[in-house]
């Protein structure tokens, strides 16, 4: 079964079971041991593979050498025959036969080494796949365990602070209300800023003798003087 499949089965059980079974320390230890064993097997297989591949190359060289030797000897035998040296040709033919036997032997060896190397490569591939699977299994078990324990801690903390006794809707309302309050405050302070800004400007204008405020006193005096003049008249 896949790792996710196993976790799904546990989740369908109970939360308690999830906390306990997946955290099965013994199971995790067994997997971890298997992972270590598989790593060792791979290391050994890789060393073996290097040796076998070296022998494979060696036998390939032997085959080449034997073939070249056979060709050379046959040429010599041919020359001997052409010079009617039958005995010599026979002697060379015996050497060719020896080389042929050697060639056959090396060809067989080469095929064996190639087969062996392929088997080792398959073994390494399979072991590496097994390691990945086990590592994933241990990883997921540990992650599930960690998340389970973390959520336990969080639930306890939420429970003790009482913060999540509130429903989601209440939380939302409170956050929204706070945002609205803040928006209101910002609008108010903007209005205030504006007002202060206007007043400050007016004060500056008055100080410079510009605007209604600056003219008021002068206008009053003018009016009074006009009345005084009228009274005199």
């Amino acid at each position, binding site marked *: 079964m896949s790792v996710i499949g196993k976790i799904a089965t546990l989740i369908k059980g109970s939360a308690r079971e999830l906390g306990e079974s997946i955290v099965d320390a013994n199971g995790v230890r067994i997997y971890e041991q298997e992972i270590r064993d598989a790593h060792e097997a791979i290391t050994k297989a890789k060393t073996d593979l290097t040796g076998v591949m070296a022998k494979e190359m060696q036998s390939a060289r032997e085959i080449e050498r034997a073939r070249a030797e056979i060709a050379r000897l046959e040429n010599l035998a041919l020359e001997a025959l052409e010079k009617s040296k039958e005995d010599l040709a026979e002697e060379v033919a015996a050497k060719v036969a020896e080389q042929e036997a050697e060639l056959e032997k090396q060809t067989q060896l080469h095929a064996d080494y190639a087969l062996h190397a392929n088997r080792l490569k398959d073994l390494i591939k399979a072991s590496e796949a097994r390691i990945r699977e086990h590592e994933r299994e241990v990883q997921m078990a540990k992650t599930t365990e*960690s*998340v389970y324990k973390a959520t336990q801690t969080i639930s306890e903390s939420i429970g003790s602070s009482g913060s999540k006794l509130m429903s989601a*809707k209440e939380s939302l309302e409170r956050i929204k209300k706070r945002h609205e309050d803040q928006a209101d405050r910002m609008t108010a302070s903007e209005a205030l800023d504006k007002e202060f800004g206007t007043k400050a400007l007016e004060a500056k204008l008055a100080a410079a003798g510009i605007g209604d405020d600056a003219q008021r006193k002068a206008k009053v005096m003018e009016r009074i003087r006009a009345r005084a003049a009228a009274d005199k008249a």
Partner: protein
Amino acid sequence: MQSLQKRLEGLDALLEARLFDVPVSLQPIPGEVPVVQVVIGGREELPIFITASPDQILCICYLWRDAEIRPEKRLELLELMLDLNPAIPLSSFGRVEGCHVLFGALSANARREAIADDIVALSDNALDALEALAEYLN
């Protein structure tokens, strides 16, 4: 592995900078596994919990309890959440112990900046999801 608290050192300042000076507090929660609570000013009701296992860092925001879902709308909500999952940036819906959550998962080697990005997205997504899906709740 470095302790979670050590890894999160300075995260509050990073978050505050990203949120334009909204106050952010980090609070470790005692327990068997490391958990740090992140509270963002103005969103105190939606704290974010950061937890770490050997392979990943999880940021979780609790949304609502199973019992809060309007029974007649339940299937529709669950399907909607599945449909929404791929569309929500950085966060996914999930459920832990009968609580629906929004969470972001990061590599255990994630940098502080990536964690800060995830938390900002998670907080915005959580508030957004609450607003959008409130009609399915009691």
